């Protein structure tokens, strides 16, 4: 039997490329760009959801990883543009404009940052965890603002989008395809993760860490691994986002960014695999549609969000799929 949520997930999943293709047909490249933005921000949300939904780790500092991913792209590409190596001693590191390489660097860098931040932050729990992750995010934000080498608050512009072998990434639909495939792959991975032994233990540690300890599993390690995976995925999304805009700036590190990623997740439905996709899509759509309505469109956006929280328990997906069915 296929559950209703699964059906909705597939429909949502198909909607994104369908939108992009229709936009292509109607010659509305900007709509494709919007779809790409949805895919990328959803990816960031999927990353956060690993920590937040599965592990119950409410991180208000995921902009740190998003920003690190973004700056990985910005720094590598700017060095490639200026032909100035990134580092000469002890090993020569050159810039690059190859997306796969940039992704790898973004993933590694943000995973490393997540390891460090997570190792420290996970000593705390609950609201304290929210705040300490926020603190680390803010440290990076202020650092990025006042660090002159890569533009400070002005950020870094990369005039041409980085390349992907065999594709013309400047063509909106091709870049969309890249982002979408990455999202699909990560969704597949995250879906398996939730059902795997690791996922079971992690989610149990969210509900009752004492219980997990008593069966001989260490919650701290489970959480740390989840946090690193989560940070890495969000970092990858950051690199893609920077490529979408061909621009990075410290706003990628801001707490509002962390908040926005979290909003996607909550809006779509915490812990639901496709929640971030639904959340990001709805948010971007609202932003786009309402933005034209009035100078004071935030009032309407706020009102709509409020309605969703009050009346759609379990987010958009929860609303559509009905009461959660425990699956085993």
């Amino acid at each position, binding site marked *: 039997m296929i559950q209703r949520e699964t059906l909705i997930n597939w429909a949502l999943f198909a909607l994104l490329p369908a939108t992009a293709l229709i936009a292509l047909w109607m010659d509305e490249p*900007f709509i494709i760009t919007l779809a790409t933005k949805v895919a990328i921000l959803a990816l960031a949300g999927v990353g956060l959801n690993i920590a937040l939904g599965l592990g119950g780790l409410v991180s208000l500092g995921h902009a740190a990883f998003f920003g690190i991913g973004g700056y990985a792209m910005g720094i590598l590409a700017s060095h490639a543009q200026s032909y100035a190596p990134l580092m000469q001693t002890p090993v020569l590191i050159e810039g690059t404009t190859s997306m796969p390489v940039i992704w790898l660097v973004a993933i590694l860098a943000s995973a490393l940052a997540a390891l460090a931040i997570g190792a420290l932050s996970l000593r705390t729990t609950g609201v304290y965890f929210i705040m300490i992750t926020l603190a680390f995010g803010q440290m990076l934000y202020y650092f990025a603002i006042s660090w002159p080498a890569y533009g400070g608050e002005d950020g870094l512009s990369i005039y041409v989008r980085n390349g992907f072998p065999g594709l013309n990434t400047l063509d909106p639909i091709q870049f969309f395809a890249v982002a979408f495939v990455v999202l699909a792959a990560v969704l597949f991975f995250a879906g398996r993760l939730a059902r795997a032994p690791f996922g079971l233990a992690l989610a149990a540690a969210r509900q009752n860490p004492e219980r997990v300890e008593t069966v001989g599993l260490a919650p701290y390690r489970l959480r740390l691994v989840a946090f690193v995976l989560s940070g890495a995925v969000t970092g990858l999304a950051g690199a893609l986002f920077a490529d979408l805009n061909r621009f990075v700036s410290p706003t990628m590190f801001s707490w509002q960014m962390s908040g926005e990623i979290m909003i996607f997740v909550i809006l779509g439905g915490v812990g639901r695999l496709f929640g971030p996709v639904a959340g990001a899509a709805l948010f971007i759509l609202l932003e786009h549609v309402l933005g034209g309505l009035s100078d004071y469109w935030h009032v309407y956006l706020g009102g709509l969000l409020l309605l969703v929280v009050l009346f759609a328990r379990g987010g958009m997906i929860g609303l559509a799929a009905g009461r959660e069915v425990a699956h085993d």
Partner: protein
Amino acid sequence: HEGGVKVGMITTLSGGGAGLGIDVRDGFMLAAKMAGNDKLEVVIEDDQRKPEIAVQLADKMIQSEKVDVLTGIIWSNLAMAVVPAAVAQGKFYLSPNAGPSQLAGKGCNPLYFNVAWQNDALHEAAGAYASDTGYQNTFILAPNYPAGQDALTGFKRFFKGEPAGEIYTQLGQTDYAAELAQIRASGADSVFFFLPGGMGISFLKQYASSGIDLPVVGPAFSFDQGILQAVGEAALGVKNTSQWSKDLDNAANVEFVAAFEAEYGRLPSLYASQGYDTANLLLSAMGKADVKDADAFRAALAEADFASVRGDFKFGTNQHPVQDYYVREVIKEGDVFTNKVIATSLTDHVDAYAAECSY
């Protein structure tokens, strides 16, 4: 349609700093309305002061709206995110407010025109004024971000004395007790600050009740029409530098101030004047060339053949203004706080980066 120009205006209309964007927009639209030119079409979008949003809106303007000219951005960091890519795609960009140094110097572009000022200019004018007035050791402060660093550099470029102290405050800081104590202890003979928006309001109010009695100089941003009412008495007597003032006595300005008040029921601000000039520059070029002929249109823009509300206006080699900078004093006219021109600080001033620009 034939000879028409489609303008994409990306500016800040919601959230913090929306007042500036709204004024630029209103000034621009006023000029368009007064010209009655039905070949000018304007699309306006709100960037929420977020660079990423600005970039995406620029994509939208270029890809979907197919605009010919972009304008509207208030903030340097947003301009740096949008302008290089826009001109690379063959679009004109007319800046009504931000003038980052990169775009004035090495990064200048034939399609980029700045109708306001290069970022350093008002600070340079303030430095020059401070020296002219005989200040020897001004205490200078600005927030710690690129525009703040440029501000202090710009001030020092024309200031002949030795700063008594130089402080970078936090971006968004609202309490200045510590800085005020440092100023008091520094033995300075005057104070220069660049603290845009609410930071400036906070600083001035706290300055006023701190018991420090030194003369204050600053760029126009913290003393502009929109913000002065919020500062109140604390601003009275402060000298600030600007390329425009409500009381500049030229025909274009008199007409502008009256029309703006009639249309919107408030006094125009610096930003409104810049938006107004931007539209008039564009209209003047439209009368001379077709925007599809980029070279001709560019030449028409470069002539700057319009009646600026600032009086004399021309472009330098890097297509940034060569203009006079005035010193204004904050006064009270009846119930409203406003500015009065008291001196001219720099005449026909060319920005510091023009020499680095070559196309």
